[in-house]
């Protein structure tokens, strides 16, 4: 497998009236062709900002202070805003959490899709409409002619999200970034959308970067997963490996905190404490303040230790295990 997207040592900071807030510190990850890559973490872990950084869409006063983002070997961060316009919605497309606010309420769905297609391709109107209709059809929307002529508010949440996915698909991207694409949807609709994403990946070979807070969603659809905590990578592994054999204390805690049928009647394992306010200011391990296994070495920053095939974890405990 060759890498499609290679994020190397990404740092992101926000300039605020109280000084520099470093929200992402040294995140690296590799997404390969044809896989669904999960990025999981709780609020404030930096998962959304990281995804926005890929398309140079970080809102002010945030900016990338260091790092490389290679898309098929091409550094996206070296590109001008003009060049990025061709990448956005072209080779890389994005889907957001709330489909309703992502669609313009005053234009018909069809018109919005046509706008996107003609931004990236010089084709005539008839050809464009044909392509829009076939794309709407490919995301399992019924009665595409009617949907084409509908305003966003006339569609249900699930249909809106399908339209968003169609919009992302329209210029045949190699990578779709989906930021909490099912969080605003009901569970039965969520299951439909997740299945659709899985199909797109399997049948068309499109890679998907799926950002979510829900380990259940990760488990159902992702091939590989990276766990973020306070702006840093704590663990990366194939989904099966991570869920069956979590190594980092934070991943373990996160999994134990989910209510599962087996533990009914018992207390859940909660992670004590709160996420650090300014993780960039911490010199040691970012999780040390909440970690049940904390010891003297945690005053230093752990790097990612390889602890198995396709499995890395940023914890000194693992280093000691693997080295003897």
């Amino acid at each position, binding site marked *: 497998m060759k890498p499609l997207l290679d994020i190397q040592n990404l740092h992101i900071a926000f300039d605020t*009236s109280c000084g520099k*807030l470093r929200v992402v510190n040294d995140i690296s990850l590799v997404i390969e062709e044809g896989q669904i890559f999960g990025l999981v973490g709780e*609020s404030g*872990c930096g998962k959304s900002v990281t995804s926005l950084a890929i398309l140079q869409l970080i809102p002010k006063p945030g900016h990338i202070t260091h790092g490389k983002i290679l898309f098929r070997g091409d550094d996206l961060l070296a590109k001008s805003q003009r060049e990025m316009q061709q990448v956005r*919605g072209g080779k890389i497309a994005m889907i957001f959490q709330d489909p309703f606010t*992502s669609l*313009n309420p005053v234009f018909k769905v069809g018109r*919005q899709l046509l*706008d*996107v297609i003609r931004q990236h391709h010089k084709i005539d109107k008839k050809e464009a409409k044909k392509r829009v209709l076939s794309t709407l059809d490919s995301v399992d929307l019924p009665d595409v002619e009617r949907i084409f002529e509908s305003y966003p508010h006339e569609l249900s949440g699930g249909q809106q999200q399908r339209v968003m996915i169609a919009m992302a698909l329209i210029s045949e991207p190699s990578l779709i970034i989906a930021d909490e694409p099912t969080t605003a949807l009901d569970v039965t609709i969520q299951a439909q959308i997740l299945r659709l994403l899985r199909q797109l990946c399997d049948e068309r070979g499109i890679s998907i970067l799926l950002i979510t807070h829900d380990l259940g969603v990760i488990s159902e659809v992702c091939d590989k997963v990276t766990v973020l905590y306070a702006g840093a990578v704590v663990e990366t592994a194939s989904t099966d490996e991570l869920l069956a054999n979590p190594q980092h204390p934070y991943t373990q805690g996160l999994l134990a905190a989910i209510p599962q049928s087996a533990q009914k009647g018992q207390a859940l394992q909660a992670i004590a404490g709160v996420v650090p306010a300014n993780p960039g200011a911490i010199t040691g391990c970012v999780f040390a303040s909440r970690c049940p296994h904390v010891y003297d070495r945690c005053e230093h920053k752990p790097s990612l230790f390889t602890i198995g095939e396709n499995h890395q974890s940023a914890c000194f405990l693992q280093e000691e295990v693997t080295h003897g």
Partner: protein
Amino acid sequence: MSLSRLFLGKRGEEPPDNDFDPSLVQRSGWAHTLYVIRRDVLAMFSVLWIAAMLISAIAAPLLAPYPEQGAGRNNVDDRLLPPSTQYLLGTDELGRDVLSRLIYGARPAMSSSLVVVAVAVLIGTPLGAIAGYFGGWVDEIIMRFTDLFLAFPSLLLAMAIVALLGPSLMNAVIALVASWWPWYTRLVRSTTRSLREQYFVEAARSIGVSDAMIIWRHILPNTITPILVQSTIDIGTVILATTSLAFIGLGTQAPNADWGLMIEGARQFLRQAWWYSIFPGAAIFLTVLAFNLLGDTLRDIFDPRQYR
């Protein structure tokens, strides 16, 4: 983030949804306000100018080079003199120092506008809160009553009332209050209607708090911000209205100093004595502008989209 904007390749403006905790960035209310004002040159100018006008109004006898002339005493020997070291901004047709007249003129301008806005807020706010909170027929009655007042152009309504009560600054103030309070009823009503749907209001109801206490404790404190913004801008507009009334002879009466009255007096001497009309005109212009700018800045500061 509107999608078309994103796909057409422009920069998104909204911060990422849940990815960092705003309370980390946010200073306490007043510190934040001061920070924004200090950063913004125009807002800084507005605050300084308004402060200068307020000080002029309060300490006019101490600040004016010729206090007696400012209060109205004639000095006919020096009529219509151009600006000089003796009279910094020249003199008027009765020989009075224009600078002193301007400083004294700040008194009716500032006091009447503050009183008008304050009374309008005091009348408009409770009515708006009651109409917005209870809705139904209560809302219907209050809002139709305000519509009645809003149907007349405000300056015209004020002129009619002054014509009825007789021209004086006091009556001009009464007249302006009558045409200004309905705007606050409307503003507070719409704010209240959206607040009423908030969970903390429902939470208070679920505890068993009475309607009156909910309005007092939970609704009114949250209407202060929009009222503050609106009334700041309104003070400028009311200054314009009181000076206009004075200009047409329905406000401040001679020999008291008033910017509108000064422009009225200067009208006949436009060609001989430019300073006589320019300076009061500039005073009105700058003061109204300052209140508008300050109001806009306050709106930016308190805007929930930025002040999260």
